[in-house]
């Protein structure tokens, strides 16, 4: 790529200082997002993907802290060095975020239109009337029927799908360069999910917005992402173009995720699972963090923390199998390990 | 206006029934007990209440003088606090310390008994209303709403005026009869919430009768919030009783009680400040202790406090 990426996250570390110890929720994550592309960030709950998203906009609150040494470069600035006023100018304006639970993400005592209009009032100093008409415009854009009437309604009067559209409308008001969507469809049922994804894809095409799509659902990734980052244990464990990831996954975790996905038309006696549980972020295992659940692990995996190996063009994987591919022979069977079903395509994160 | 003392408001605290209705479970006694024991102010409150209770029970033995004795109406009248009389004497040369100690007996007993009565009546009423539901429930609750709207103090004054002087027993009955409304509302919403719980439906499906469901499944959920409310009410009632006695309509004047001490001391408060002051301290200590204990109980028994497993 000759063009500079829109967003560069470099060695991001976000730690939570709790009574139970230091939780290293995000422990050295780096990735780029180019202008106009959709990056998928996928992983199960506890892997740090949501915390990564919140860190980009510096929405981490006590007892969490973004560690020094992390850098988030956006439009020529390091977001982590901005003062309070500076980061507020970015939030909702250049980078907007869509949250997971449309039920609770909207303030119940203000009208929907008011909440959308607020973005214009905060960032463009728009008058009440101008901000309101912009809000109605946004509601039209996201495909809500009778937008002028809906704008005067309160969140509890709208359905879940409509509320999610409102959140998207809120994110689009200032035509941001990047939208971070944190599990935008998880709380919705499947038909609505499809509509929302279609809407996002459509908007991206029309407005050229970059999207960071955070999800645990590989189906969503397959539909909208052009590149994918797989996270586990607070780290990036694999990164590739979406076609490559699905066709030739390298990291055993990615492999497991793909196998766990039930596929229509395939006869299956039992669902494949990745055995074991995600370790707690206060105590990541030494060496490779996935080794206790990995079918191929050997003693090197316990001793040496794997770096990101270069596999192919734009494809990296944090696994020693890149170095010793002959070791790719399964040592454990599903029957001898406790099962943790990786929720794919339908369960909450 | 004190939500920490006012029955209905504290009892109406939406967070308590909502927590239970949300499917949270009341933590088991052991867990709650440990959480409570760790709360230093709550434990402090319990200690204060226990001390007061001991003081009340052993009043005859602890008090240095007979509370009703006029020790020396000429020379020992209105003595300021001193070594002989740590709380001073009043205008009738009675030792204030002894009167405060004995006063605890009456005030605490009245509060305790009337709160128990009110809690019992209120729980029964609210449980029936909540369990039966339908128009009976609406009617019962509308009745309670009306009763709640009548300011308690005015109601007490009205009844006291109409029925003549009340003795201590009468006072307990009166306070009990006017204090159950808030509890019934609380219990009713708890029972409604619990009735909709799935394990109640399951029990019913298994053929359990109404009494069994009420006592085994629903009432345990009700116990903790009612306990919190009752603790708050004790502090509240002590003050109301003192206030009524202060106005002249509570405990008969010859019996030492905190309100009575206030009344006696009111006439010459500027010159003889020690009577209202020490009585007030005792009163405030009681209320404060009750509030601390109630707060501690509420935190310890709160379903939200359970760590996620």
């Amino acid at each position, binding site marked *: 790529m000759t063009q500079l990426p829109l967003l560069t996250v470099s060695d991001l570390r976000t730690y939570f200082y709790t009574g139970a110890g230091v939780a290293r929720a995000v422990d050295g994550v780096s990735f780029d997002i180019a202008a106009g592309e959709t990056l998928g960030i996928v992983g199960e709950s506890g892997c740090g993907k949501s915390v990564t998203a919140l860190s980009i906009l510096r929405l981490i609150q006590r007892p969490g802290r973004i560690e020094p040494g992390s850098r988030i470069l956006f439009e020529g600035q390091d977001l982590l060095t901005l003062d309070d006023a500076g980061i507020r100018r970015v*939030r909702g304006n250049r980078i907007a975020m869509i949250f997971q639970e449309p039920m609770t993400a909207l*303030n119940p005592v203000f009208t929907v239109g008011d909440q959308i209009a607020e*973005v214009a009032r905060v960032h463009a100093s728009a008058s009440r009337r101008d901000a309101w008409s912009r809000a109605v415009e946004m509601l039209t854009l996201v495909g809500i029927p009778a937008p002028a009437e809906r704008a005067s309604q309160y969140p509890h009067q709208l359905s879940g799908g409509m509320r999610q559209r409102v959140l998207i409308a809120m994110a689009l008001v200032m035509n941001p360069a990047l939208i971070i969507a944190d599990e935008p469809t998880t709380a919705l049922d499947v038909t609505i999910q499809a509509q929302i994804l279609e809407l996002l894809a459509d908007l991206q095409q029309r407005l050229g917005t970059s999207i960071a799509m955070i999800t645990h659902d590989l189906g969503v990734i397959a539909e909208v992402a052009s590149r994918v980052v797989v996270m586990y244990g607070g780290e990036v464990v694999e990164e590739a173009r979406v076609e490559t990831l699905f066709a030739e996954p390298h990291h055993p975790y990615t492999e497991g995720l793909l196998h766990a996905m039930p596929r229509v038309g395939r006869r299956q006696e039992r669902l494949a699972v990745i055995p074991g549980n995600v370790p707690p972020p206060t105590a990541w295992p030494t060496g490779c963090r996935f080794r206790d659940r990995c079918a191929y692990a050997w003693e090197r995996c316990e001793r040496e923390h794997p770096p990101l190996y270069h596999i192919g063009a734009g494809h990296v994987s944090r696994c020693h199998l890149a170095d010793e591919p002959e070791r790719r022979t399964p040592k454990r069977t599903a029957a001898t390990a406790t099962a943790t079903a990786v929720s794919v395509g339908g369960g909450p994160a | 206006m004190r*939500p*920490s003392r006012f029955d209905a408001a504290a009892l109406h605290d939406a967070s308590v029934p909502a927590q239970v209705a949300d499917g949270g479970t009341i933590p088991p006694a052991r867990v709650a007990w440990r959480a409570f024991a760790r709360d230093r102010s709550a434990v402090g409150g319990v200690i204060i209440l226990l001390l007061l209770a001991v003081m009340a029970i052993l009043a005859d033995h602890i008090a240095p003088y007979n509370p009703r004795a006029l020790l020396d109406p000429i020379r020992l009248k209105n003595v300021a606090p001193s070594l002989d009389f740590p709380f001073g004497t009043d205008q009738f040369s009675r030792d204030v310390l002894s009167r405060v100690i004995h006063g605890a007996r009456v005030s605490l007993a009245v509060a305790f008994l009337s709160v128990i009565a009110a809690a019992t009546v209120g729980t029964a009423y609210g449980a029936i209303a909540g369990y039966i539901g339908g128009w009976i429930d609406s009617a019962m609750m509308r009745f309670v709403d009306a009763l709640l709207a009548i300011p308690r103090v005015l109601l007490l004054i009205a009844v006291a005026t109409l029925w003549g002087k009340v003795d201590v027993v009468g006072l307990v009955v009166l306070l009990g009869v006017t204090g159950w409304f808030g509890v019934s509302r609380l219990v009713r919403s708890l029972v409604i919430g619990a009735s909709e719980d799935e394990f109640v439906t399951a029990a019913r499906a298994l053929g359990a009768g109404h009494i069994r469901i009420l006592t085994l499944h629903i009432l345990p959920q009700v116990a903790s919030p009612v306990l919190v409310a009752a603790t708050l009410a004790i502090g509240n009632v002590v003050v109301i009783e003192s206030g009524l006695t202060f106005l002249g309509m509570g405990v008969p004047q010859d019996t030492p009680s905190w309100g009575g001490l206030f009344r006696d001391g009111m006439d010459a408060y*500027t010159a003889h400040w020690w009577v209202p002051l020490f009585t007030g301290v005792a009163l*405030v200590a009681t209320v*404060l202790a009750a*509030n601390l204990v109630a707060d501690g109980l509420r935190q310890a028994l709160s379903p939200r406090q359970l760590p996620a497993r």
Partner: protein
Amino acid sequence: MRRFILRRLLHGVAVIFIATTLSFFLVHLAPGDPFSSSLESLATDPRVLAARRAAYGLDRPLAEQYVRFLTRLVTGDLGPSILAAGPAEDALAAAIPNTLVLMGTALALGLIAGVALGAWQAMRVGSRADRAVDTASLVVASLPEFWLGLLLLLLLAGKFRLFPTGGATDYMHDLMSPGERIVDRLRHLALPALTLALLSAASIARYQRAALLDVLPQDYVRTARAKGVGERQLVWRHALRNALVPTIVLVGLSLPALLGGAVFVERVFAWPGMGRLAADAYDARDYPIVLGATLVGTALVTIGGIATDVLHAIVDPRVRSR
């Protein structure tokens, strides 16, 4: 919204009706009647008493008495007052405005101070200042009104002579200029209102702080932050509006207790309000005034309750459809 108000009004009427009926039965369950135990009655010829009883219809069946009671009530006739030597309703009518002024002032002051304090605390939760204020408000909220009143009276009026020691007006009030009169009234209002306001503020602050701490971690606050809204706006516009809701509910429910507190405070400061009148009426065994005060008190509380419910619906739109 209109339907909501209508429903609440009907509910209020029902409440007042039930309370009135209860009062009636309360009177008639009591031993004796208005004429049997006042000192005056004891000295009067029994035949005259019998005639008076007949005049008041006390020898008629209960149902008929009840109807008479209701009809008299509608016209505002509460009966003769022994204390005031005139119609009870006149005595009450003179006293009610004073109580309203006292309660209204106390409520307004307490609400403003309490909400501001609670918000101030929530923004600094965990700090030394927060914890200090928390302890202070717990202690203040636990104080009995008459004790706090006495204390303030002792200190500010007695020792430091900053305020008068009682009553609503100075005995030279009518000779003062209009400006002086206002100052005089305010000086007399200050201590009793302050007593009630302090107590209100303390408990509202505690409640408001807890409510805000509940609201601040909510998702919608995070959404607002992600939109670029500043911290101060977050608290005062987004969070507070939600946190005010339980406080409004609380205020509505506490009105009966506030009135009860006013009774004691009026006694301590000799404030010529309804509460003091009721307490004096007890001493004089004046039924009509005592009952009248109870009914008026109930009506005031009910109206206040409707007002707070409407306010609640204004602030929280989810309530309107219930």
